[in-house]
């Protein structure tokens, strides 16, 4: 290959790479303001696992044991933060997120969260999920008048929307997507493969 040919090839490659690097977004204006009832673990922990999740997403349900294992293996060192990211393709995901927020306002977010994932197959395919969510709220002993009133009025949908906006800003395109101290992990397989290592890295920072 002549020098001229090699030179032209290199110039083209460098130009293409520069265009990509200039167009790529690497910094996001993100906020870490999340209601405290959606956080678990040590509030002072240096390692934070933030999860963007959809209650109707099967992969998200599968990732719950992985998250639990990470938290158990790193007690006092890890904080879990839940962010809503209901996908448009899941009919009841937004309502499920609103219901979880409504339960959170009565201090039972994680119990409702666990119930939604454990019974996902039950409520995902029903013609109307609202009565099912009301049943779950009753089983948890919530103030049902308040729960129903707030769910019917979508009172806490703004908090769900806030998380969605944040997820879009972070280029979240699939659920679950995790950020372990801002290092991205997409899907349960990647979390299983890399989660522990990334938590270790986060603790060393």
């Amino acid at each position, binding site marked *: 290959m002549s020098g001229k040919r090699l030179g032209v090839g290199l110039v083209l490659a460098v130009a293409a790479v520069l265009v990509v690097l200039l167009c790529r977004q690497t910094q996001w204006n993100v906020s870490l303001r999340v209601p405290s009832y959606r956080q678990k673990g040590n509030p002072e922990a240096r390692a934070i696992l933030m999860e963007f999740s959809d209650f109707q997403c099967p992969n998200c349900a599968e990732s719950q044991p992985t998250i639990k294992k990470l938290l158990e293996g790193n007690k006092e060192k890890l904080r879990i933060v839940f962010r809503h990211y209901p996908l448009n393709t899941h009919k009841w995901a937004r309502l499920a997120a609103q219901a979880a927020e409504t339960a959170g306002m009565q201090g039972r977010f994680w119990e409702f969260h666990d119930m939604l994932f454990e019974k996902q197959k039950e409520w995902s395919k029903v013609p109307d999920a609202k009565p099912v969510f009301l049943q779950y709220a009753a089983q948890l002993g919530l103030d049902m008048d308040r729960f129903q009133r707030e769910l019917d009025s979508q009172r806490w949908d703004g908090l769900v929307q806030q998380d969605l906006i944040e997820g879009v800003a972070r280029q979240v*395109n699939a659920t679950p997507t995790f950020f372990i101290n801002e290092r991205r992990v997409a*899907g349960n397989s990647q979390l299983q493969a890399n989660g522990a290592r990334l938590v270790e890295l986060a603790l060393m920072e």
Partner: protein
Amino acid sequence: MTKFFELARSPKAAPWALGARLLLGVVLALSGFFKLMAPAEELALTMEGYRLLEPGRLMTFARVLPWVELLVGVYLFVGYSTRLMSVLAGGLFATFIFAIVSALARGIALADCGCFGRGGPHLSPPQAAAMDVVLLLLCAAVFYSPQKFAIDNWLNKTPSPKKPQPSK
């Protein structure tokens, strides 16, 4: 098939060959570009759906593939090392066809082919496979056809020898 190659080689095919080369270049370059605009982890997640690669290799592949697509696309578009690039592009499309057909044959439900990452058009797997077959044929046409408006033509020009001066 022989007729196809004969046609591809004929001078009449030159405008079509140019169109094929430009189209291939744009499709590959854009495919790589859109993938590079999204996090590599997302592409790895899409590729995981095909269940072809070991999980440990997915991230490496997800980081490298878009750059290969982009560079091969750019080189094809400008007509640089055209024949080599058409072979590489053909290899890529053949691999994509294999991945899709293999997934479909194993009954794996793929929602989106992942061809253009998240930024580009969303094709169903059969649509993507059909598109890749057409593009593979175009690669063959580009390989065999003479190319106009290619940087190769300028690079391959050898300087003309100086005419000997008559002795006095």
